[in-house]
Structure formats: C-alpha cells, structure tokens
C-alpha cells in the first residue's frame, strides 16, 4: 500500500511557495518509476521540497510526526499509487493559498461566494450593526455579504450572484483563507 506524504520539514519551509502543476506531474513520474521498480520507499529533498514514498506504512509513520500541513493520503484502503499521487498536490503556503475546495455538503445548484483574499471575515459592518445577510435573505449580485479585513484594510465582498442565501459558512470575526467559501446562494442567475 502506498502512502505518500510531503513533510516540508519544519515550520519555516512550510510557508514557502506552492507546488505547481508541473511539479506534481514530475512527482507522479517519480512515483510511477518507483512503482515499476521493486523498491519499497523513496525520499527526495530538493531545496524546499521533500518527498517520501513508502510501502507498508513505513513512510507514513515516520512522516506523521512531521509537518502539521500537508498530510495526504491517510486514506487507508487507498488504491495504488496511481490515484493517490495526484491528490498529493496540495499544500501551498497559507498566505498564498489558492481557492480552497468547497467545504461541507454542497447543495445541488447552490452557488458559492468565496473570500477574495486571506483575512478576517466580518459578517456585519460593526458589532452594533445587523448582519449584512441572514439565512433566507434575497441578494443581488452587488449586495455586500461581508467584509474581509487584511492588514487593517477592509474589502467588501459582493454576493456575485442573485438568489437566496441558503447557507452561511463563515462566522463573524473568523480568519478565512483566500477562496474559502463564505456562503452559498440558491437559484437565481449568476452574474459578474
């Protein structure tokens, strides 16, 4: 059984640049090469990148104590490396995080409103004000659904879609990543 991990060794390297598409392809190439071979494990470190491949759970066990980030395939009954590998792509520095995957169970047809950048989400203009939107509220594409503050600069987040708010996914005052889903909107037609 394959178990791949990217133990970016410690906190410092964790924060650095992201794994590009091409790098993933290359890593897959390595994995497949190892797969074709009779070896049980492979470790690669190039500058910021460390790759540990293993069989029989050994790589996983050594990696478990490592980086807090990036742990992939703990899928236990996972298929062979071929499928596990592409998922290995993930990590990326917090500050430069790409769009996160949808969280929670998406409702069919629901449109997502995502954080335009990393920061602190505010669902109301100030603590004494009512929330910008509530569950069931109707919004237009230009309705402000919240603010994201980064380094003392506030950025209004527009709904981007017309419709009804069916789920609010971020709490007032919560730190959000760029691309994180803030709320979901049902029906209506998307705009802008």
């Amino acid at each position, binding site marked *: 059984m394959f178990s791949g991990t990217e133990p970016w060794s410690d906190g*410092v390297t964790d*924060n*650095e*640049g992201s794994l590009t598409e091409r790098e993933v392809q290359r890593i897959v190439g390595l994995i497949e090469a190892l797969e074709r071979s009779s070896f049980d494990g492979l470790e690669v470190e190039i500058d910021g990148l460390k790759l540990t491949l293993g069989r029989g759970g050994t790589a996983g066990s050594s990696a478990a104590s490592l980086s807090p980030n990036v742990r992939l395939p703990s899928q236990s009954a996972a298929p062979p490396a071929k499928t596990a590998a592409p998922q290995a792509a993930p990590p990326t*520095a*917090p*500050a*430069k995080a790409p769009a996160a995957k949808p969280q929670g169970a998406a409702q069919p047809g629901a449109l997502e409103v995502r954080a335009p950048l*990393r*920061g*602190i989400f505010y669902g109301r*203009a*100030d603590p*004494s*004000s009512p929330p910008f939107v509530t569950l069931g509220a109707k919004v237009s594409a230009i309705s402000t659904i919240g603010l994201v*503050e*980064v*380094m*003392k*600069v506030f950025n209004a987040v527009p709904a981007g879609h017309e419709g009804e708010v069916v789920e609010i996914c971020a709490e007032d*005052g919560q*730190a959000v990543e760029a691309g994180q889903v803030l709320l979901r909107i049902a029906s209506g037609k998307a705009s802008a």
Partner: protein
Amino acid sequence: MSVSRVFVANRGEIAGRVIRACRALGVETVIGVSEADRDSLPARQADRAVCIGPATAKHSYLDMKAVVAAAVGTGCDALHPGYGFLAESASLAQLCADHGVTFVGPTPEQIHRMGNKLEARLLARQLGLPILSGSEKVGSAAEALSVADRVGLPLMMKAASGGGGRGMKIVRDRNEIASQFTSAAAEARSAFGDDTLYLERYISNARHVEVQVLGDRFGHVIHLGERDCSLQRRHQKVIEEAPAPGLDPALRNAIREAALTLARGMNYQSAGTVEFIVDADTDTFFFLEMNTRIQVEHPVTEAVTGIDLVQEQLRIARGETLRYRQEDISLTGHAIECRITAEKPHEDFRPDPGRIDRWDPPQGQGIRLDSHCFAGYEIPIFYDSLLAKLIVHESDRDAAIRRMSQALADFRIEGVGTTLPFLAHAIQDEAFGAGRVNTNLVAQLIAEMTAQPKAGA
C-alpha cells in the same frame, strides 16, 4: 517613578526600537505579544515575552486590562505604549497609574485633552496659535451648511475623536454637505464611538509640518526642530524628512515657537509632536493637532539632532530633568525616512501579507533601518503593513535624496509585494527634489507611476 523593567505594549519595529532604548539604559524589558507574534523578532529581543491574547488586536494589543495585567504580573514598573494601538489612550495611562506602573508618556489629562481634537483646537486658540477658520463643533447638517456659508468651500470635515488622518472628508459641493455629514457622523460613531464632527477650511496647496517637542516633569520644554511629512497617501505619511525643506526662516521660526507655546501652555511632559498645516500659497500656518506619543517618523529628528528620543522618553518617565536646554539643540545635515509597507503599489496598494523569502537590506554609510522583518518572517494579516523604516542622513538634502535613491535600489525583498518601487519613483521626482512638496504630490506620483510600464520583475 522607578523605571527598571519596562513592559513593551506594542509590536513590530517600534517594539524593537523601545527594547533597544531600554537596553541602552540598562533597563529590562518584557513584551506582551499576541498569539500571532509569539515568534516575532521583538519577542526574541526582549528579555521576556508574554502572550496577552489572540491574534486579533482587539483581544490583545487593544485589550487594556490584559496589557496592564500582564505588565503587573511580570513585575514591570513601567510601560511603553509605542505608537498606534493604545498609545494615545488616556484610560491606559490612568490604568497604569492606578496599578503603580509608570506610563512612559504624558499624563492622562494631557493625552485626553489632545485626544479630543476640538479641545486641542480650543486650547491652541486660547494660547494664541493660528487655527483654521471653521467650526468648533457641528451638531447637524444644517449647522454644517451655515459654517460652509460663513467660511466658504472647500472644507475638511473631521471627527473630533479622530486624528492621525482618520475620519476625514473633503467637502467641495454645497449640495453634498447633508449626505456627507450623515455618513461622516455614522463612520465616526462606528470608528471612535463618538460622532462629534467639526469643519475646517481646506487648504489645497498644503504642506504638513510638525514640530518635535520634549518636556519633563519640571516644566522644561524644548523643541527639536520640525519635520516635513507632506508626502501622504490617504492621509497616511509615506516619506518624511527633517528639517522641512525650503521654509522661509521667519515662518520656520514661528512654527517652532507656536509648538513650544502649546507644549509649555500645558506643561507637556514626554515626547510629543505638534502638527501644523502650512498653506504653501500664502506662507501661513495653522495648528492641526498634537500627538502625545512617539511618532513613526521620529528617526529623522534623531538623525539631525543626534538625540535618542525614546531614551529621552524613558529618562523623563523616571523623573529626570531634561538633559538639554534649547540652546544645546543644533541640527546637522538632512534626514529622510521612507516607510516600506507590504502593499502592491501597482495594484492600488493592495495589502500583500505572506512570507518574506528574501530580505537583503541596503548597507553603507548614512543608512539606518528600523524593522522587525527578516528572511523567513511570515507577515501576519492582523496588523498594519509597515515592514521597515529606511532612514538616511547626509550633509544636505540633495545628498540625502541620492543616498535614499541608492538605498531603495539596493533593498531586495522577495515573497511579498512592497512599496519599494513606488518609493524609488517618488524619491527621484523632480518636484520632490526641488522641495515642492504638498499633500497632493503622492497622488500625482502614483498616477505617473501606474501610467508607466511596470518595471521588470
């Protein structure tokens, strides 16, 4: 008034600055850090670091009780507030006094009085300082209209509890006064908890000139010359210098004397800054406000006077008399400071937090860098975007500009976007070079820069 262990109630470069001043005087330091700043450079530099709350400033650096409790709990007998956060909170100064902790700054009364811009304006007027024509307070849109009719447009609408450039609106059109009044009042209430507004004549060709003062507990007050901080973006200073270039000698002298008059009039103690606006068309000046704390731009004054302002704050706080009389102060050469922030100038100065991958500061004669950054530092999203203050000191202004231009070009920062390209553009501007600075210059420079093709890499 013993000052043997100082609690540093701040973060970033100013925290390091305070720690250095303390160490130079043989004073221990304890820094209160948020969870986001546990591994920051100042946290390593202080003798001890204690966590005072979560990353959000509201629950850490702005939590007065947490701050004072930490100071008391770590056996500190003094507290330095830096700038920003609680630095101009009279309540913090009072809370310190209540707990037997020496506040490194002026008295709670002095902070309170200058904190309310209307009260400050009133005192200045009583002391004979020139103030801009306008209102003492406007309670309604109708009142604002009548001020406009009396004083004329344009006007600057300000929040009485604002200051430092926050909560200001230029009123240019009589028809918009009512709506601007309503929104400004709402914003002021939300931001400062006080919706009191006032109006002042707006000066279009304006320079921002401020005078550094020092006062002790015995009524001695001196000034350390003035700084020009006209280069501002959205009322935030970008480039500062000392002395102010090209001021008529009589005007320069009058401004310095006015600052002394105000500071003496209130027996001001500690370091403070009296801010003025200079109408460059008429060579007249007007009192704006007084900042009762150390300023971001204090190093340019340190460069030309050779006096360490933070050390003087600490000495004053522990009850020493001023070590300088006015006649001891002489200014040598010219100093310029550039604020380097994590903002992308080509993307409307969008904040760009993240990890600093490379940090190679400029080196050489006449260069000072005050910063809490280093290669590998992860800039938190929770606080302001100031990364470093680059200060140069040379024999004259032209040499200082050349030095700064070179130092900016030598500075290599990678991993985050910074204002280095904008600063490099601004420092080489012809109008700036000729000393023709005003508070609109930055906007022009930004327009010029963004019109140019973006520099490679």
